[in-house]
């Protein structure tokens, strides 16, 4: 059998991700790069990095099929096709665990609730794409207020003994509210717990719209936020199923899996 290679490239608002798989679906290479202004440049950089450690492939041209996805998907001129990130996240998560039925995908600029069919395709979805509250950008802003990096902020709430509610729904107002709470000498970990809880509640409402059927998993960059996962599990009263693959590259993985499917059509 001739070995073929397939690529998936997910251009988000904050990062670009690429995944290269072979015939059997095994991941040979992956990458996460910061987003450049031009989505096509980001895609080229992400793919270049993902291909670096695969000696069998010299360039993008050696890929049998390449699917672009994400916010900048339509700008990747060298992709064979582009597919919505909603479908790609569903397919990627399903590939990792076939019992996954519901996904919350938290990216840099939007949040999506996705329910999936038995074959990994999308059944329903709901998205919050007009407001930064609850997205990666929101967490970045919060970490800045706490003068921490994102990783430290993510873990801060884990040590909280209680929770100080953050009631503002808007990112900008929430920032003001958190600054006031910090200035009031409230414990930072309790405020952080309030922030995580507010976002978890927003995700819960979004998931309610598509129907919450276990197993539930989380994808996207914010899936690495341990404080958020704890808060989300509390809101859902359901364990979040961990994925065997870095949750940030699930969209790109789904795109690569679609590339394999489409090429064999």
């Amino acid at each position, binding site marked *: 059998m001739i070995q073929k290679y397939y690529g998936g490239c997910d251009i988000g608002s904050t990062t670009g991700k690429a995944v290269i798989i072979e015939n059997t679906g095994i991941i040979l290479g992956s990458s996460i790069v910061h987003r450049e202004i031009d989505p096509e440049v980001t895609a080229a950089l992400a793919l270049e990095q993902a291909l670096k450690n695969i000696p069998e492939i010299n360039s993008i041209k050696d890929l049998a099929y390449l699917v672009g996805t994400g916010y900048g998907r339509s700008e990747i001129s060298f992709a064979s096709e582009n597919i919505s990130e*909603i479908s790609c996240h569903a397919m990627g998560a399903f590939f990792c665990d076939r019992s996954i039925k519901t996904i919350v995908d938290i990216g840099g600029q939007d949040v999506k609730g996705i329910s999936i069919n038995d074959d990994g*395709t999308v059944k329903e979805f709901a998205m919050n794409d007009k407001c930064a509250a609850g997205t990666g950008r929101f967490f970045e802003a919060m970490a800045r207020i706490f003068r921490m990096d994102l990783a430290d902020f993510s873990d801060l709430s884990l040590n909280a003994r209680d929770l100080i509610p953050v009631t503002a729904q808007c990112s900008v107002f929430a920032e003001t509210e958190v600054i006031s709470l910090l200035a009031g000498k409230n414990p930072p970990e309790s405020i952080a717990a309030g922030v995580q809880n507010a976002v978890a509640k927003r995700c819960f409402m979004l998931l309610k*719209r598509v129907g919450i059927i276990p197993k539930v998993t989380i994808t996207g960059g914010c899936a690495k936020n341990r404080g958020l996962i704890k808060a989300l599990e509390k809101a859902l009263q359901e364990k979040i199923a961990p994925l065997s693959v870095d949750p940030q590259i699930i969209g790109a993985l789904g795109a690569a899996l679609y590339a394999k499917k489409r090429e064999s059509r």
Partner: protein
Amino acid sequence: MKISDLKDTAVTSGYKMLNLMAITKMGIKHGPFDLIRDIRRYPWLLDLAKVNRLVTKLSRSRRGNYRKAVGMVLHGIVKEMVHQIEGIFHRQEKLVLHEDMVPPEILRAMGLSPWMPEMLGILLPMIVPNVMEEYIDAAENEGIPADVCSLPKTVIGLTVKDRLPYAKAVVTSNLPCDGGMSSYIYVEKQLKAPVFRLDIPHHFKDERAEVYFSGELKRMIAWLEEHTTGRMDWNLLQEICEERNRMMDYELQLWEMIAARPAPLAADAVYLSHLWFYNVCSGLKSSTEVFRRLVMLAEENLKNGVAAVPDEKYRALLWNPPTMHVIDLFAIAEKRYGVTCIMDSMSFNRLPFIDTSSRESMLQGIGRYIMNGPMARHTRGPMENYFDDIFYIIKRFGIDMLWMAGHIGCKNTQALNNIMREKCRAEGIPVLIIDYDLADPRITSREGIFLQVDHFMENVMKAERRFL
């Protein structure tokens, strides 16, 4: 270019010409000085005059009889709009403003000239999508909350900016929502005209309600006779009701035909005709004529095996009023995905013909239509009023998916969205809820609306987009 393409171009050009002629004739009749004065008083007249943009928008992707139907419906709207504007110019002593849930049949039978203020908030965004922004802002500057429906806000804005015609009297009701009711307080204050408010009972499905409400209509007639020059002509009301019944008869024939797969006519040809000719000018011979010709065009298409949308793939039910500032939503979805809008919540009803055998039966018949108006019956009482219609239409018209125009200002329908999702999920009906505002494109832009459609069609319906 094919001959059929040339014919289509000729059809659209013909209707555009007729529209221009009707508008020009009205201007000439009014005279240049009076016209300039009135354009300054009612600047929206200039926006209405751009109606041929709407003709282009809705015609360019349609072919054959479907294109003819769209052009004819729009020309019918233009003709009646011209007549209504002439009412402001020349029949001001008979002018009565009426709210959108109060049908104008009784006013006409009294020899009065009806004018529905909401008409502008509905029609203008179809022609110039962002035209109502200044009126919405004016309403909010008066203290109306941002989350109130933008349609009554356009009425408030037009009122406070003194751009509504002065009327001898105003008739309104407690329907369909609080926003609607509050807008007429502004109209009352600004116009200093006497206002009559119809009390429509909350439980409207029994005989007691019908008797009570026909009493309300009698009270309204007596009030109008006291405050205007209008006098009730019961014979004329009978003629109007009989004409309305004839129009309805044609509409029922049309619905029978569009139940076929593929449908011979669809979308705006069906829902704009109902929206306009039933709510603004029902009971007129010209309105019945539009429906007669729609039936003829549909019949011809059926006979020749011609579909409105050549490769009809998905049959959609549109719920809530159409997306006014993106009125070509289905014209584009037809082309892009083969989506065909078959029926909508504003058109569909299961009410009987008006019994014209006596004064009482006519008033009860008209009253039934007011009490069961689409937004009225769907946003009052138990949720069955809402969902029974949805699932009946889905079954009767072979619907594949539900498109909910999720107007953010309509709290009544927003409150039902999750139940609707759950019920449709149980029935296996895919649902697209389009987040948008009825008259304000700043809430969700045209691009934002199509993005939602594309996401839904690609991910849920697994549809392939035909062109980028």
